[in-house]
């Protein structure tokens, strides 16, 4: 099994390197680009690809954040602040090695934490009552809505996302909403065109930044003396433990997993440094804590998907869709063997990513030659092609493009806002309904909308 997965693992690592280097291309966009190809393979292959892609992107993304001060994702903001300051002080190689070694060792630590919880997994699973599920969903919604620029806009987006997800027929009680007797609408709006229209394309159009070549002249990267870097890192081991621990538990925050992990661990470490009187911008320990937490969070946010079948970030929703399309169900197909496989894959990926990130760091200086804006337009074109291919495979080309173009104006209208409330409620709408109907059955407290 493992040998069969290796090609997908290495393809995921290669894709992760590109996704980490090219501005504006995150895990979601890369997974979308590979969507039609991955549709032809089984759930394990898709999962191996995703795991490698998501992990490698973390390693490479912190290099670009350090050198060019461009955050690939919001979780890289601490790397931008502390890493880039270190780079400007001529300590760029220590910033990069600290982030990479921290991510590497942190992944082993979180694997250990999860491993120790495995014997109790059924007990944890059987505590997951309808009330607990409802509490989790409500807490997440509140968190996502209140973190939006305006609570009113956050709520409006969440309601719109919910109604968008509601279109179609509900299996459990045959309730149909806005289907107009159209068989395609009975299946609901497909995930890919909706997410491309309201989440990916507006982001690519507005957030892509060019790399500034002038910044290269101010710092330097030396990738020799790797063991010296390890020795230096080992002097800061308590930071590693703190970052891993905070990152792991904060990683369960739906929708913002690694962002919360990295920024929370960063703030905690920065406070410690301030209390010690050792903090000034370009702080090595704060950077290591953030990057370690970033990777720990990336692992933690996979667990609800893998164990309960609940995707908590948009790229996981796409992964869930892909795996399910290939007959693999996260949650339903979880077993100890699957966890063992996950652990082995994670160790391989992190080891390879560490040894890629380190020598690759010096080539980062060529990146300013990339025409980032042009690149993002090229990616948009590619995504349109992917939409066509995926729609054709499912005999729904017109439906895919109609959905996409109907929602694109809304995505563009909201381009200056984080559309996460919309995306999240669209993804979890069926779960909200299921829980709502069940609460109605158990206590008679469901809103009218659930009552068919």
């Amino acid at each position, binding site marked *: 099994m493992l040998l069969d997965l290796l090609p997908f693992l290495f393809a995921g690592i290669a894709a992760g390197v590109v996704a980490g280097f090219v501005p504006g291309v995150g895990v979601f966009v890369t997974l979308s680009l590979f969507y039609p190809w991955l549709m032809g393979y089984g759930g394990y292959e898709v999962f191996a690809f995703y795991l490698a892609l998501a992990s490698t992107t973390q390693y490479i993304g912190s290099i670009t954040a350090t050198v060019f001060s461009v955050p690939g994702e919001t979780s890289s903001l601490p790397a931008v602040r502390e890493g880039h300051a270190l780079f400007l002080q001529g300590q760029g190689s220590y910033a990069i090695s600290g982030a990479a070694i921290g991510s590497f060792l942190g992944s082993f630590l979180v694997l250990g934490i999860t491993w120790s919880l495995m014997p109790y997994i059924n007990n944890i699973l059987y505590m997951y009552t309808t009330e607990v599920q409802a509490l989790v969903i409500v807490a997440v919604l509140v968190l996502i809505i209140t973190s939006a620029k305006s609570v009113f806009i956050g709520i409006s987006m969440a309601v719109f996302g919910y109604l968008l997800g509601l279109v179609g027929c509900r299996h459990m009680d*045959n309730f149909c909403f806005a289907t107009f007797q159209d068989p395609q609408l009975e299946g609901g709006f497909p995930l890919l065109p909706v997410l491309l229209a309201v989440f990916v394309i507006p982001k690519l159009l507005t957030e892509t930044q060019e790399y500034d070549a002038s910044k290269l002249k101010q710092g330097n990267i030396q990738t020799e003396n790797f063991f010296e870097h390890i020795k230096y890192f080992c002097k800061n081991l308590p930071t590693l433990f703190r970052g891993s621990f905070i990152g792991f538990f904060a990683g369960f925050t739906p929708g913002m997993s690694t962002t919360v992990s990295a920024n929370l661990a960063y703030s905690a470490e920065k406070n410690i440094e301030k209390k010690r009187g050792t903090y000034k911008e370009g702080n090595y320990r704060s950077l290591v804590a953030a990057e370690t937490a970033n990777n720990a969070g990336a692992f933690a946010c996979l667990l609800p998907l893998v164990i309960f079948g609940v995707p908590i970030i948009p790229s996981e929703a796409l992964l869930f869709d892909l795996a399910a399309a290939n007959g693999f169900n996260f949650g339903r197909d979880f077993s100890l063997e699957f966890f063992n496989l996950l652990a082995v894959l994670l160790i391989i990926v992190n080891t390879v990513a560490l040894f890629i990130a380190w020598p690759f760091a010096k080539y980062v200086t060529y990146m300013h030659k990339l025409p980032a804006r042009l690149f993002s337009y090229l990616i948009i074109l590619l995504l349109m092609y992917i939409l066509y291919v995926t729609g054709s495979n499912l005999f729904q080309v017109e439906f895919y493009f109609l959905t996409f173009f109907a929602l694109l104006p809304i995505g563009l209208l909201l381009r200056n806002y984080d559309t996460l409330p919309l995306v999240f409620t669209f993804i979890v709408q069926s779960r909200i309904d299921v829980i709502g109907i069940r609460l109605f059955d158990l206590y008679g407290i469901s809103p009218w909308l659930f009552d068919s």
Partner: protein
Amino acid sequence: MKFLKTLVLSAMMASASVSAMAKEKLYVVNPGSTGGSFNAIMSAYAQDLKSEYDIEYVQGKGCANGYRIASNLINDGQKVFTMAMNSKYTPEYRAGIGNTASCDRMPTADNFIRADFHYGIIFTAKDGMEPEELFEEGRTFKVGVTAEAVKRLLADFFAHHNIAHTFVSYNNSNDVVLGVYTGEVDFAYTNAPASFFKKAKDGKGLYTLDPNGLGDIASLSSVSDYPYARVGNAYSFTVDGMSQEEVAQFASTVKALHDNKDSNITKYYKDGRGYTNSILDMERDDALNLVDEIVDGWTAALTK
């Protein structure tokens, strides 16, 4: 020049042999959701049939859309392999429940390949109630169910025995198993016993609708005079766009897959206690008749 000639000749021979070996296209249509058991079954078949056919796997994302796609393909003269849950959609359609008119699809003598027959099961948690408690007076049970048709059947059964109850709805059989084990319902009924057997060590079977019982689980009809206490379930598998000879050939290919312990479809069914696979255990005509009988049974129960 000689090299060039050899190259051209080889290329022509290669292309001729490739077209001679070209596989026929077969559309495998999953009429269920991407996260359900239909998808798991059809994708296992798709993987196994790859060696014989050029497979195009199509996600219907719901029976209405799935059968629309299948019908379009069949009308275009394509070969289409799909499945149907006859024991649910057709009786629901006939009983006028919900918006499932376009899910009414029954197998015919021309396209029938095989069917799965199985019986629903009533189960509880390991430390839950005992079977005989179901008929005790003065109790109100919280009962987990997954579909409207099941709810109607059980409501009729409970009314027959004066059993007080409230229904709690779950999305699928995996959710209902979790609901029982978290203790939020007293017991549940599922038409897909495989989900229960997968986590059977934490649960206890109370009754099966199988008139012969299932292992140490008693049959409901042995303790109840309810006329539909033995109604079963049928999933039928059909292939269209093929001649009768091709259908027979396809059926033997499918049978060979079920005989092969390493095939994906055999692996899917290996934990499935209580299933009868018609292609292994029954005559084709008998299986087709049994599908009809089961659908008639459900329809009678739901339209009562």
